[in-house]
């Protein structure tokens, strides 16, 4: 090929003065044409084609003007009656059409010229038609007859023109009308026409598929034509048909096979091999048959195109035959080592196809493939990279990545980006499937972050955090690897090379901040981070930086774990008594330095136009100011105060990321979280969902030690029992004194029952708050109310008449109503020994010897859940009656006895007790709305006042009558009043609680086990 090419090139470089010599044929005589025939014509001075070509070339700047002028002339010329003038005008127009000038308007004139008898004119017409006619051209309806006539012409070239033209402009209509004429040309005596007819037939098949079936038989017969060119054309047509639908042409395989063995024409052999390449996947037996001829062609042919076609066929459908594949791989190596970039590219691409089935054969050429990465040609580099990516295994991963990273240095920006992407993909793909050494990978990632012009900073950052969070042992190395990134101020510059480095830096800042205990030179890092260049970065990067600074500040003052001496060489000011333990040393110097740095550099960020940045900066500044103030308040001894403050600050960031178990990694973490949130929100209200963006990852809750995880398991089991009660909405079995523990249980339950999935700490904090609030509401001693289920009933019974309104005010809970099926009043089981007031009262009662067992019955855990209201009422009535009877019997001693019982309780105390009882009820009214409760209290107070007045009136006469009862007041009256139940009820206003209390005590007593 090469020598011929040179020759041609030399020829093309010929001087332009040779033109005049070269121009021949019709054009030359274009001017002459007019001169000949147009003596009387208007267009004696018609410009020839040569004139306008020259004119355009000399016009240069005024080319458009000149062209317009010519077009104007052409429009006039083309309308003339003289066929020659018309033809020349059309030819000129065809020439201009090449530069984008429309010639659709001249379609009719084109047909006119096509219908000329003179071959020279016809030729010009056909050329114009071939170049300009489209499916939408309207004059198409005019040409079928013209073409028909020409197809049947006795002049071979006229038929040739018509066939050429038809191949170009064929429409479904034309195909339908003319396919029979073309078909009949298959029998022409001229091979020239036969081969053209065959190729035109294919075009007709495409536009008019119905023509394929009748013509197909005759077409395949032409495979045995005498002329190679005809056979070649038929093979080309069949090849196209096979590519579209190989299955239908399988029966022709033997014919093709025969042709393949006898063919001497490389062009045709290529087509035949291609046909087999498409047939092989469908017919496995064919592959075996082909082994021999294909092997022979591959080993003998000098033509690369044919060789390549054979290799393609092998990779397409013969991959199960090892011998051929090996040969193909060998031949492909020749392609790759070849200097010609075309062969290199094709070789690599074929290897890519061979890779899935014969990785070993491909891996043999690894070195050559790696060398291709340094090629100057992007296409080749890309293909090689694709191949390299496909070849990576666990064993050669590090080697490959090293190669890729090395290639980055020489590559241009475009390919460098591809390299970065491929490294990230190869290592991070399928959850770091191939990766064995994460420490090494962290270093690689740090390197990738620095690659200038890389656009993959985001992915680098993501992987950095992902790995550091998951691989615990890696954190120290990660921090060390991140440090240089943060220290390098050049990375913060506003340059196109740093277009995406910010996202990696953000991750670095997070890692350094989160694992600050491994940071050895905090002040240095902080100084490097708070530089004015930070403004160049995106706001999100600045936010991360500020947060990192805050974390570093929180860690300040304590020595890093593995730094025995202060890296800054500053003066340590060990506190007295603590200087022995290096970790406990509080370095006031470091804190000062940090505070100074922050005060100096932060104001710039405080004025940022990004709200989040400025807010975080302001926050940090406030913290620093507070620390300064604290220190100033104790000018003599600032260290202890400051240290205490710093410790408090450090508490903010104590929680760390929790490494997720490998099992959990299979689950998309985000989804689990969402699910978890929903679970919790049942109990805890609206916990907004938040995905794992970096921010939430930054605040992941973490308990991480093994000890703790064991604890979690234990607590989870405990919490499970608690959880059941939680579902009853009143879940606080352990009493109010240990809310923190309960909270832990809850939180850990959340963690424990789902493979230790980390919960964002903001969520838990929220939950914590909420829970704490709940606890306060339910168990706070300040809220003096605790109600038993049965207490409810009794209260209602006694107070229903007067207190009904008050209870209705309690959030609409009507206690007097029977419970619905799914309604639930709290059971006493849910609040065993819950209310401190009750407890106090009980002890009080016990101390005063007031029927301890009876009291137990009233306030104790046992309730008569099973007892219906009616039953209870009836029982109460019975018991009261019995008691009354008994009291009557012992009329004389009773008053004194009762007097003794209540001896210690003054009237005020009793009142207080009653009030507390009522409030308990109100609280148990389940609204537990303090406001409502307040309202209820008020109502009750008013009532009480009213009662008091009434009582005061009643009491006077009573006192006079009953001397014995005088000391005790209400209690003493009871025995007398109980004689008649009605009377009791009527006078109940005065002392409802006392009456209610008593019968209850007496009835409950016997039920106690």
């Amino acid at each position, binding site marked *: *090929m090469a020598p*011929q*090419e040179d*020759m*041609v*090139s*030399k*020829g*093309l*470089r*010929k001087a*332009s003065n*040779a*033109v005049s010599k*070269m*121009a021949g*044929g*019709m054009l030359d*005589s274009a001017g002459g044409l007019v001169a000949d025939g147009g003596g009387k014509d208007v267009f004696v001075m018609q410009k020839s084609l*040569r004139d306008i*070509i020259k004119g355009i070339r000399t016009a240069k700047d005024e080319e458009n003007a000149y062209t317009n002028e010519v077009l104007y002339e052409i429009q006039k010329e083309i309308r003339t009656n003289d066929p020659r003038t018309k033809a020349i005008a059309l030819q000129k127009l065809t*020439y201009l059409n*090449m*530069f*984008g000038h*429309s010639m*659709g308007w001249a379609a009719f004139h084109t047909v006119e010229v096509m219908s000329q008898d*003179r071959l*020279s004119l016809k*030729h*010009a017409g056909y*050329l114009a038609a*071939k*170049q300009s006619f489209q*499916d939408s051209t309207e004059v198409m309806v005019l040409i079928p007859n013209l073409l028909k006539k020409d197809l049947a012409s006795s*002049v071979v070239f006229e038929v040739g023109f018509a066939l*050429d033209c038809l*191949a*170009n402009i064929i429409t479904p209509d034309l195909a339908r009308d003319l396919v029979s004429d073309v078909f009949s040309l298959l029998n022409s005596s001229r091979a020239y026409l036969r081969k*053209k007819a065959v*190729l035109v037939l*294919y*075009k007709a098949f495409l536009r008019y598929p119905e023509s394929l079936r009748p013509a197909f038989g005759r077409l395949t017969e032409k495979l045995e034509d005498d002329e*190679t*060119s005809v056979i*070649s*054309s038929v093979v080309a047509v069949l090849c196209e048909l096979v*590519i579209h639908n190989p299955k239908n042409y399988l029966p022709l395989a033997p014919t093709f096979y025969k042709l393949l063995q006898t063919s001497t*024409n490389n*062009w045709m052999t*290529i087509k035949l091999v*291609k046909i087999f390449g498409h047939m092989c996947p469908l017919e496995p037996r064919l592959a075996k048959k082909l082994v021999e001829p294909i092997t022979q062609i591959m080993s003998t042919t000098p033509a690369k*195109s044919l060789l390549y076609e054979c290799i393609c066929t092998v990779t397409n459908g013969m991959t199960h035959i090892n011998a051929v594949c090996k040969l193909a791989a060998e031949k492909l190596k020749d392609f790759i080592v070849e200097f010609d*970039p*075309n062969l*290199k*590219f*094709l070789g690599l691409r074929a290897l890519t196809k061979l890779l899935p089935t014969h990785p070993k054969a491909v891996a043999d050429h690894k070195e050559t493939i790696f060398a291709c990465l340094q090629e*100057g*040609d992007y296409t080749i580099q890309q293909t090689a990279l694709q191949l390299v990516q496909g070849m990576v295994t666990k064993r050669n991963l590090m080697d490959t990545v090293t190669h890729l990273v090395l290639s980055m240095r020489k590559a241009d920006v475009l390919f460098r980006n591809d390299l970065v992407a491929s490294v990230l993909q190869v290592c991070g793909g399928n959850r770091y499937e191939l990766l064995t050494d994460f420490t090494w990978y962290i270093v690689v990632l740090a390197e990738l972050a620095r690659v200038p012009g890389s656009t993959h900073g985001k992915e680098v950052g993501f992987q950095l955090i992902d790995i550091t969070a998951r691989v615990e042992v890696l954190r120290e190395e990660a921090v060390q690897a991140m440090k240089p990134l943060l220290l390098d101020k050049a990375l913060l510059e506003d340059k196109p090379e740093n277009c995406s480095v910010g996202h990696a830096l953000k991750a670095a800042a997070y890692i350094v901040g989160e694992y600050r205990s491994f940071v050895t030179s905090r002040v240095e890092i902080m100084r490097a981070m708070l530089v004015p260049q930070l403004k160049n970065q995106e706001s999100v990067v600045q936010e991360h930086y500020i947060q990192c600074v805050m974390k570093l500040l929180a860690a300040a003052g304590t020595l890093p774990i593995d730094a025995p001496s202060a890296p800054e060489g500053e003066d340590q000011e060990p506190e007295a008594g603590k200087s022995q333990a290096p970790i406990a040393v509080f370095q006031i110097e470091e804190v000062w330095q940090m505070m100074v740095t922050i005060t100096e550099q932060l104001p710039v960020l405080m004025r940022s136009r990004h709200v989040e940045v400025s807010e975080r900066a302001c926050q940090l500044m406030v913290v620093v100011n507070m620390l300064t103030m604290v220190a100033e308040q104790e000018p003599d001894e600032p260290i202890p105060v400051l240290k205490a403050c710093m410790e408090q600050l450090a508490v903010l960031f104590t929680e760390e990321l929790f490494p997720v178990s490998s099992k959990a990694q299979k689950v998309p973490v985000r989804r689990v979280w969402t699910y978890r949130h929903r679970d919790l929100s049942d109990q805890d209200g609206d916990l907004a969902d938040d995905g794992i963006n970096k921010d939430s990852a930054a605040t992941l809750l973490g308990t991480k030690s093994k000890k703790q995880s064991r604890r979690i398991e234990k607590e989870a089991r405990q919490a499970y029992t608690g959880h059941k009660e939680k579902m009853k909405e009143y879940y606080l079995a352990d009493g109010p004194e240990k809310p923190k523990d309960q909270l832990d249980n809850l939180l850990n339950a959340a963690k424990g029952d789902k493979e230790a999935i980390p919960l964002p700490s903001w969520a838990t904090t929220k939950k914590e708050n909420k829970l704490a609030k709940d606890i306060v509401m339910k168990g706070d001693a300040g809220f003096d109310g605790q109600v038993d289920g049965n207490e409810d009933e009794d209260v209602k019974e006694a107070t229903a008449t007067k207190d009904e309104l008050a209870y209705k005010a309690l959030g609409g809970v009507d206690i007097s109503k029977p419970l619905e099926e799914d309604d639930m009043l709290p059971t006493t089981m849910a609040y065993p020994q819950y209310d401190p007031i009750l407890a106090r009262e009980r002890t009080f009662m016990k101390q005063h010897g007031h029927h301890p067992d009876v009291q137990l019955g009233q306030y104790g855990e046992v309730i008569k859940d099973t007892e219906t209201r009616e039953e209870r009422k009836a029982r109460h009535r019975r018991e009261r009656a019995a008691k009354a009877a008994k009291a009557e019997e012992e009329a004389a001693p009773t008053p004194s006895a009762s007097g003794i019982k209540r001896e210690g309780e003054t009237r005020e105390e009793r009142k207080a007790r009653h009030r507390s009882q009522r409030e308990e009820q109100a609280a148990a009214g389940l609204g537990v709305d303090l406001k409502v409760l307040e309202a209820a209290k008020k109502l009750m107070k008013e009532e009480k006042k009213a009662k008091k007045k009434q009582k005061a009136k009643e009491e006077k006469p009573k006192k006079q009558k009953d001397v014995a009862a005088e000391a005790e007041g209400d209690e003493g009256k009871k025995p007398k009043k109980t004689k008649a139940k009605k009377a009791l009820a009527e006078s109940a206003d005065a002392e409802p609680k006392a009456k209610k209390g008593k019968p209850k005590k007496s009835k409950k007593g016997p039920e106690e086990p």
Partner: protein
Amino acid sequence: MIHFVLLISRQGKVRLAKWYTQYTVKERTKTIKQVTGAVLSRGPKLCNFLEFGETKLIYKRYASLYFCVGVDQEDNELATLETVHHFVEILDRYFGNVCELDLIFNFHKAYYILDEVLLGGHLQETSKRAIHHVVTEQDALVENAKNG
């Protein structure tokens, strides 16, 4: 199958444009623009194959002319390059050391020769001699018709 053949000068001027499948005028202009942009910017030692939408663009530079061919994905790139070379050789034989100017001033002849090499996007004649014979024979006929 070949979809189009474009001959583009180093200055980006179209010297020959042949379309074997349906391209509207707009698509033609657009394709020419894209091909020109893609091919002219490439360095000399690069691979001659380009992805070009649904087709593959295969180009080869001869002196000041780029021969650009758009082919199907299945097509053999090397064979296409050989087809281009085949065409160039025939031009060379016909014009006797062909140069860009020959093709400019005899653009219709270039088209005619191309039509004898390719038909409907397929190579129709592999014999250079046969094509040369046909073209000269036709020239003679045209000459006769003109004079007679």
